Structures are given as structure tokens and as C-alpha cells.
């Protein structure tokens, strides 16, 4: 019972680290997917006196994915109050040309500024509407969300790492007598510390397997999937191969690192 209790404290600490890491990964994936959705919806409108060739606009900035000319017919139709056909044609010719630029991805505020500057620099373009206020607000909201999740994950990581460190130290104190007896018979450091490493690795594996179970369950939960669908994004919440490998490596790597720090930092009794 005591032994299970010892294992539990390390397994729970490791599990919370893995949980915070995966939450961070899911948040990052969600933001990327949401940015992609926004990139489809977001566009920049330019006004030009002359007809522009698509290739010329594409050359202005790499971020521009495609150009769509906005037909003025609908606007002219609304203005049509007894205007002659001839005048209508004349108006069509004299009206400036409107183009909608679709972008390759959702840009940062700086990228929007640069794009606007590049476009204004073109001799034929007279006006650029980048909807920067709406864009900036949305972008900052996403950054804030990502920032909060990162800080949360980092805090959990630091606190639980300290807890694991302390737990391993307790283990080491428990094994000090045996380790010093082994030392008296010439056991090298790695052999004396083998139990500590074995316990740390076993617990890391247990925590990884538990994390696998929890995240597989979460990734299949209809309620969770519904939440993502409702905001129009589709992401992989938990990749059972890649994510599991990453989490296992983090858990095992961290346990070995902390165990090594304790073993190497321990002043040997001769």
C-alpha cells in the first residue's frame, strides 16, 4: 500500500505535466486551425484607377494568394434612377476598379501593415482597405488565448517538476543506507542508483499510458468534438502514435534528468 502511495505521487505529478503539455498542444492546434479559417474569410480591398493585371498584384507581396475583381454592376444598378444607358456605360468606364485580395494565411498585424504599405507604393493603387482594426482585435484575442494557455502550462510544468524533484529526493533518502552499503563493496554510482532510475522510468511509463487513456477518451468525446465543430474547426486532439511518443519521451526524459540531477548532486558517504 505504501509502495503504491509512493508511486502515485510521482505518477500524478507526471500526469499533470503531460496533461498541461497536451492542453497546450491542443490550444496551439486550435489557434492554427482557426487562423486558417480566418484566412479564408479575411481579405484586403484595393482601389485602382487603372485595370490591374493579376500577376502584377501578386508580385507586390508574397502573402497575396489570389486576386478577385469586384464588379461595380450591383452598385451602378442601385444608382440607376432614370439614367440613360449611354451615361451608365460612361459611369462604368470612369469608375475606379475594385479588387479583393485573398491571402495565403492569416497575417500578423505587422504583415498587414507591410502589405498595405507595399500596395500603396504601387503607382496605380489609390486606396487600400485592410480592415486592420477588426483584424488586430481578432489577432490579439488569439494571442491572448495562446499566452494564457502557455503561462498556465508553464506554471504547471514548473510546479510539478519541483514536486517530482522533491519526491525523488525522498526516495533517495529512503535508499541512502542501501546505496552506502553497496558503495562499501565497490558498487559504481550507476549500480547504486539503479533502483532510483528504475522507479522513475517505471512511473514515467505508467503516467504515459494513463495519459494515453485519458486523451484517447477526450479525443473521442462527442461533447468535445461538438465544441470544435461549433466554431468551425477540425483538429486532431490526440494523435495516438505521434502525441503518445512525444508524451512518453517527455515523461521518461524528465524523470531520468531529475533522477540524474539528484544522484550527481548527492554528496557521497564514503
Amino acid at each position, binding site marked *: 500500500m505504501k509502495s503504491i502511495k509512493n508511486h502515485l505521487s510521482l505518477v500524478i505529478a507526471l500526469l499533470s505535466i503531460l496533461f498541461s503539455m497536451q492542453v497546450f498542444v491542443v490550444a496551439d492546434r486550435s489557434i492554427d486551425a482557426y487562423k486558417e479559417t480566418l484566412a479564408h474569410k479575411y481579405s484586403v480591398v484595393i482601389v485602382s484607377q487603372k485595370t490591374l493585371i493579376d500577376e502584377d498584384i501578386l508580385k507586390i507581396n508574397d502573402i497575396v494568394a489570389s486576386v478577385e475583381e469586384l464588379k461595380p454592376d450591383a452598385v451602378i444598378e442601385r444608382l440607376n434612377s432614370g439614367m440613360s444607358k449611354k451615361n451608365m456605360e460612361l459611369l462604368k468606364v470612369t469608375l475606379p476598379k475594385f479588387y479583393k485580395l485573398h491571402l495565403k494565411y492569416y497575417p500578423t498585424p505587422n504583415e498587414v501593415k507591410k502589405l498595405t504599405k507595399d500596395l500603396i507604393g504601387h503607382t496605380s493603387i489609390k486606396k487600400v482597405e485592410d480592415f486592420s482594426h477588426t483584424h488586430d482585435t481578432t489577432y490579439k484575442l488569439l494571442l491572448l488565448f495562446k499566452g494564457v494557455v502557455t503561462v498556465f502550462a508553464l506554471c504547471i510544468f514548473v510546479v510539478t517538476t519541483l514536486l517530482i524533484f522533491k519526491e525523488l529526493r525522498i526516495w533517495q533518502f529512503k535508499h541512502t543506507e*542501501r546505496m552506502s552499503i*553497496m558503495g*562499501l*563493496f565497490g*558498487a*559504481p554510482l550507476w*549500480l547504486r542508483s539503479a533502483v532510483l532510475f528504475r522507479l522513475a522510468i517505471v512511473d514515467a511509463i505508467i503516467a504515459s499510458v494513463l495519459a494515453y487513456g485519458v486523451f484517447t477518451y477526450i479525443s473521442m468525446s462527442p461533447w468535445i468534438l461538438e465544441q470544435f465543430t461549433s466554431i468551425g474547426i477540425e483538429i486532431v486532439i490526440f494523435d495516438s502514435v505521434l502525441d503518445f511518443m512525444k508524451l512518453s519521451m517527455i515523461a521518461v526524459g524528465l524523470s531520468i534528468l531529475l533522477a540524474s540531477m539528484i544522484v550527481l548532486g548527492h554528496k557521497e558517504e*564514503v
Partner: protein
Amino acid sequence: MDKVIVAKDISLAYSDNETIINQANISIPSGSFVFITGASGSGKSTLLKSLYGALKPKQGSLIVGGVELSGVSKSKLNFLRRHIGIVFQDYKLVKEWTIEKNIMLPLIINGYEKNVTQNQVDSLLKHVRLKHQSGKYPLELSGGEQQRVAMARALSHNPILILADEPTGNLDDYSSGLIWNLLEGANIQLKTTVIVVTHHIPETMNVEYKHFHIEYGSIHEVN
């Protein structure tokens, strides 16, 4: 005859203020049986500690098994310790291991194969009359039985040198007799050098022995 221990002008101390052994010289040929006696607090155990590298000489040269212990590296010290068998007054058995595993410890450290290890342990358990208790833990045994386990552990890897600190200190006659028989046996049959720190030398010894006495920080051989 080769010397297993050569100490030249060694001084031993736990602090700068108090020197326990002062500029002592000892030379012990291999295969000897040696008793070190002295009053309580005279420095017998301190001298023994220095022989397995738990206390480095403050000054002088101390060579054990060909290894200079003044300023010895950890890996060299481990190497030396793998060829020494130590019997402690307080047994120093691993409480959470069975007595069988305790006896196996030096064999595991020395990398012996499992079948060799098992045969050696079985044979030693018979010698110390504890075969029937092999699965028990140290705290389930009496003091005498624990010391017999410690003795078996010290002999298990056929060391070149056995260091015993008061091995029969608080034991009954039966356990004491067994311990002395084992130490004599190792010395006669295996030519193992045996160094025993004790208050009293047994009256009947079947081996020739050297006797060093420690008094007022100096060591002298008793004829």
C-alpha cells in the same frame, strides 16, 4: 612475500584539531592473519576505515592491494573495494533484502553470472548454518545470525583481504566459534589476508597471527 598493506608515516584524523593515529608505519604481508587491539577510542576502527578508503590519511602514504589511498579516485577506490570483504560491528545488512540477496551483493557488483552466484551463496549459507533461513530478512534474525550473514557476504567473492571490525563483539559462543572458523578457513585455504580489530584475541587460534596494538596514537607490533 608481497605486501598487501604498506603504511608509511600515516596520520589519521577526523578534524584538524585531533589526530587519532600519528605517523604510524605498518607493513602486512599477503596471506597474514592480523589482530589489531587497543582500548576503546584508541583508533582501531579508524585505522580499519582508512584501509577501505572511508577515511583518507591526513598525511603519509597508505597502499592497500597496490592502490595508493591518499588522493585515490572514486573509480580506483571502487575497484579496490570490489576485492575486499568487510565485516562491520553493526553488520550493515540491507534490511529490505533477503539474507540470500545480501550475501549475493559483492557477487552482483563483481558481475558474476547468476548460476555461479547462486552456487556460491548456497555453499556459504551452509557454512554459516543459515540455509534454512535464506528467504528471511535481516531483522527477522538474531544478532549472531546477522553477523554470520555479514561474514558470508564478506567471503562470497573470495576477496584478497578481509577487514573485520569486532566481528564477535556481542555474539554467543556458537556464533563466535563459527565466525572464527570461517576467518581461519579463508586464511588457510584461500590465503586471504585477514585483519581483525578486536578487544580480545581468542585463546585458541589455529593460525599463526601478527598482533598490532594501538596506544596513544601510535601502532606497535606485539611479539
